[in-house]
């Protein structure tokens, strides 16, 4: 703690370099944004059609549902944008050595890289949301209560931390196996479904929904959005907070355990 400013400097430069690196691959990035927008548009028009002849579906009004869908692009930026999955590759190619050999915390290093990733994605998602709202004029819910807004931001940060941990844990597979892409790919699909990036989770049958709330994924996307919408009881928020905190601490412990064990097996091979 003796040199907070110094440490910040370290991570700022890492974030700045990552950002600069991004501009080398502008086209890749733009195409990625296009993909995000298209998937949002598909969901958007699908729900708009469903709401054409009724005012409520699964207990959601049209405004609530469309707000949920549009805010997904922001969630993609804040929570789901990460380059943490590259860590598996870095382990396998021995690039991890470059960081291990230096007096810098590897998790901090990776998180700083993610910050720039998130920053640029958030920047674009905000522009996209404004464009979508201007072009499509959807009925939207604008949360004005400071209480829900600040809780929303708090849970966004928690969700980002949770996703970072999950991503790092999956990347640890790299210490034991060269085949890391398969498990990661399955995980992406699982997350897309279980976190609520296609639809709000409470339209699922009650027993399934109940079970999902015990898993960490719910808290990545669905839970924060639900808080933004404000259609959630205090009791439910408290329960969610406890479950989420439990997962963040447990996964942090698991991650550190795996990391320590992994490093002992690390052969720094490759290239």
């Amino acid at each position, binding site marked *: 703690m003796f040199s907070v400013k110094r440490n910040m400097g370290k991570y700022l430069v890492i974030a700045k370099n990552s950002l600069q690196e991004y501009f080398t691959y502008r086209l890749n990035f733009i195409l990625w944004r296009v993909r995000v927008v298209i998937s949002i548009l598909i969901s958007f028009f699908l729900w708009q059609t469903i709401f054409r002849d009724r005012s409520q579906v699964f207990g959601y009004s049209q405004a609530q549902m469309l707000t949920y869908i549009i805010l997904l692009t922001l969630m993609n930026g804040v929570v789901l944008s990460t380059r943490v999955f590259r860590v598996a590759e870095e382990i396998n190619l021995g690039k991890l050595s470059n960081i291990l050999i230096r*007096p810098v915390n590897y998790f901090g290093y990776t998180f700083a890289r993610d910050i720039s990733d998130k920053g640029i994605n958030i920047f674009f998602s905000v522009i996209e949301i404004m464009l979508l709202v201007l072009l499509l004029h959807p009925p939207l819910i604008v949360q004005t209560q400071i209480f829900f807004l600040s809780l929303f931001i708090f849970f966004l940060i928690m969700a980002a931390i949770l996703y970072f941990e999950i991503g790092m844990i999956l990347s640890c597979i790299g210490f034991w196996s060269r085949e890391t892409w398969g498990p990661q790919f399955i995980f992406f699909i699982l997350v897309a479904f279980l976190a609520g990036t296609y639809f709000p989770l409470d339209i699922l049958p009650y027993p399934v929904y109940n079970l999902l709330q015990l898993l960490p994924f719910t808290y990545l996307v669905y839970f924060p959005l639900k808080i933004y919408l404000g259609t959630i009881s205090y009791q439910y928020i408290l329960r969610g907070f406890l479950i989420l905190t439990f997962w963040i601490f447990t996964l942090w412990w698991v991650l550190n355990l795996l990391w320590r064990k992994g490093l002992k097996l690390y052969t720094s091979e490759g290239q």
Partner: protein
Amino acid sequence: MRSIFIRKTQEIKAVDDISFAIDQGELVGFIGPNGAGKTTTLKCLSGLLYPSTGSIKVFGFTPFERKKEFLKQISLVMGQKNQLWWDLPAMETFRLNKEIYEIEEKAFQKTLAELSGLLEIENLLTVPVRQLSLGQRMKMELVAALLHRPKVLFLDEPTIGLDVVMQKKVRDFIAEYNRQYSSTILLTSHYMADVKQLCRRLIIIDHGRIVYDGDFKNLVMKYANFKIITVLFKERNLDKDKLAKIGQIKEIDLPKVVFAVPVAQATSIAARILQNLPVEDLNIEEPEIEEVIRLVFSKKKYG
């Protein structure tokens, strides 16, 4: 704290219960056949690998613990690996290292100016790394690794893949750096020229064991107590049996003959050849270091 680091001798224990002590400022060559454990040893010493058994100590630290105080005093450069941010100018990596190693701005500018001056790369600092040639990149790698003035520098094949001119430049730089900053350098290489020019002391390892540790000159005396006489004759019709009596023939492709003769008799034999045979040209040389090393491994008279 300081006094711990400025000790004269650094005890370094390596794999397979081999241990060696290296003095501050020494430049030691580490050679051995492929797979002997050179790179593994360097990785263990720099804390990348966890030793499955036994322990390693480098100036009092256990490398694998990767204590900040330890990492700040070492550096590892691997000729086959890239430590720089590939898509960015090398300067960005340097800036990051400045922050990571907590180097003062003034010291950073000074070291950077010195190093880039020595390596003649001042005008390449803002070029993206991917556009640099292998040689230029290697120079940048060296700068990146030396900005924090490490006490101990591990160099794994620093000249691999470089052309002869660039090899020489990198070599000269390493020698100069070692002289100016008296930092301890442990170097592995396949190119004997590197070792010959740079290292007075040599450690040869094979199968994770030290088979020789000592002065470069002693090695030559011990394992290669002979000199090479290369003679170019004026004519091709010479009696091979007669030539064989002069000394042991290593190579014969008339009019060229290569003899291996005991050091003590080298001059007298040369004189005899010049007197009795039609000589166009004659050369007396030390045996090639490659050959000496080969002898070390073939004789297996370790120790």
